[in-house]
């Protein structure tokens, strides 16, 4: 089987993925899978999706050659795929739009979502408002504090934000709580998962909606430089922006694919979220994948300066790409990510999300090791407005 034909019909990417959920959810996942496969081959559905991506989201997002940044680091040329310019400020809306269209098709009047940084929550609240769907967003109470602006945004858009007090009070707990809501309200509710995780068909479906990023990139790079980049670099939390840009490149084996995880305060401190770099396989949130866990199989608490990367699991397709070595996974620390953030602000006049800053930080390390003709394409997954309080507090800027 070719790598890009996965998952198999049971949702497996090699030994990863699958459907590890309680029986109550099995029928709903079956129903979702059918609705998704029907829509994926329905020209009317695809046409509407493309129309909305163009006129509502603002696609295609441009690719930008960061000349001053490239000169500064003195090596490879940096190109940015500007997902930060999408409506709501991140790649998340590509996927939300697709799933909300499915929800409407399936006759579900209510959508729910989990969110960490709040970008997926904002995207869901946004599309729910536009489609007239009731919307509830689960968010760890720690993240509610860290991302107050996004909480306000979701409320203005008419969503109910439900702070989650259980466990570590972050993204993984929000996901648990959203699953509990779903199982309780299964007839009325569509669960819009925000990344390429969860039980089959979510990892495949979210990836497919996000591959618009990589498909556009291939056309745009050809137009701009007459060839494809030497390396494609993206940050990895759950892994949706990375899968979206990687997947169309899987068959192009001359293109290096590099996923950048959050090393937090350093992998050896234990305070990090670098699942593929430092985790081991296990089962969480409906799929088998790499996890940060202790010897007894309990999920451990994670840390990252960016709420969107603060997750102890990762999409199963990344686990498969790691083991099969088609993609490389590396990590950068909070401090390095902050440097990546400031460089892009000062050299290019673009304020990146702290999540995306991880990819930039790695590009900064890689650039000098490559020649001036080498091309790196970084997925700039989101804009950094939501992070100004975090960055200001870390750098002593008073607001």
């Amino acid at each position, binding site marked *: 089987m070719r790598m890009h034909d996965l998952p198999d019909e*049971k949702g497996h990417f090699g030994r990863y993925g*699958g*459907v*590890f*959920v*309680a*029986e*109550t*959810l*099995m*029928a*709903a996942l*079956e129903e979702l899978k059918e609705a998704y496969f029907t829509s994926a081959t329905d020209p009317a559905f695809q046409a509407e999706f493309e129309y909305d991506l163009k006129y509502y989201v603002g696609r295609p997002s441009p690719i930008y050659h960061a000349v001053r940044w490239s000169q500064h680091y003195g090596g490879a040329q940096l190109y940015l795929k500007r997902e930060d310019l999408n409506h709501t400020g991140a790649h998340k809306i590509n996927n939300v739009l697709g799933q909300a269209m499915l929800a409407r098709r399936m006759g579900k009047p209510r959508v729910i979502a989990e969110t960490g940084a709040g970008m997926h929550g904002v995207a869901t609240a946004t599309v729910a408002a536009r489609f007239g769907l009731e919307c509830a967003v689960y968010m760890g109470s720690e993240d509610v504090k860290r991302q107050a602006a996004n909480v306000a945004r979701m409320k203005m858009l008419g969503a109910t934000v439900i702070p989650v007090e*259980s*466990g570590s009070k972050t993204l*993984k*707990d929000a996901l*648990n709580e959203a*699953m*509990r809501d779903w*199982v*309780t309200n*299964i*007839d009325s509710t569509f669960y819009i998962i925000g990344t390429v995780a969860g039980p089959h068909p979510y990892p495949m479906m979210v990836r497919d909606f996000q591959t618009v990023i990589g498909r556009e990139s291939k056309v745009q790079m050809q137009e701009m430089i007459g060839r494809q980049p030497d390396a494609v670099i993206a940050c990895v939390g759950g892994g949706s922006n990375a899968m979206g840009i990687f997947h169309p490149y899987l068959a192009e084996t001359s293109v290096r694919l590099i996923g950048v995880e959050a090393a937090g305060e350093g992998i050896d401190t234990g305070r990090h979220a670098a699942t593929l770099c430092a985790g081991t*396989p*296990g*089962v*969480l*949130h*409906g799929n*088998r994948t790499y*996890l940060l*866990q202790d*010897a*007894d*199989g*309990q*999920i451990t608490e994670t840390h990252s300066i960016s709420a969107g990367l603060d997750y102890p699991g990762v999409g199963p397709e990344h686990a498969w790409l790691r083991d099969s070595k088609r993609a490389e996974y590396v990590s950068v620390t909070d401090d390095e990510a902050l440097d990546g953030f400031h460089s892009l602000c000062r050299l290019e006049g673009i304020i990146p999300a702290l999540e995306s800053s991880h990819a930039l930080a790695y590009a900064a390390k890689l650039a000098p090791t490559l020649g001036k003709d080498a091309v790196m394409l970084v997925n700039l997954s989101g804009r950094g407005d939501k992070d100004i309080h975090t960055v200001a507090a870390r750098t002593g800027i008073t607001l």
Partner: protein
Amino acid sequence: MSRIAATFQRLRESKRKALIPFFTAGDPDRASTVPVMRALAQAGADVIELGVPFSDPMADGPTIQRASERALSKGTSLSSILEDVRAFRALDDSTPVVLMGYANPIEAMGVANFAERAHASGIDGVLVVDYPPEEAQDLLRALEGRGIDIIFLVAPTTTEARMREIANVARGYIYYVSLAGVTGARNLDLSAVEEKLARLRRLTSLPIGVGFGIRDGAAARSVAGFADAVVIGSALVERLEAAGPDDAARCAGEYIGSIRQAMDAK
């Protein structure tokens, strides 16, 4: 014959229904687990479902979430639970013990290693909430020949085709989840459960237990009217939470004794 099969046969012969209490091992503390198990058996529990705490109990409501957090904070692990069951077995060789929990602690131990150790500890059944039959093949193979039954859930949303598949692989008994929701929910609809059970009966000769949302003697008695076993979880866990470690065994015995009485009353 396995302990579970023997138990259900004995119950059938005496025309009684099984009472299956659930509590989380290590809650309220580790030292109380074996005494609580003993008290439950003495109060008339026919099978004990022992919860294995997990950091991310996706299918559980707040009561069992809190129990899991308490148990983990006391250092409870799958290994320590297997030791507790071994200690219980030395004192009680007839009451079946079923481990109920999530996949990851078992996968971390290694499925084959787990099967061997569970067998050595005297475990009779395993119910892994997030292993539907599709993903349970490795565990099924590992448990083969070890006298440990694998117990599966059937839910209100389960289609007839899936019921048939589940009936094919299930052993011991089938656990019918009485409502679409998490443990501890309060929206039990008994007539809907009864109707679904009648359909399930046509597909299996295994005993059928009903759980989720059964909170008192009256509900237990009604469920016992059409099911083979009544599972009581969150309502017991709430009482353990209120009792604390020193009074846990006494409270557990008293509560389960009262349910037993309600079920057996003529």
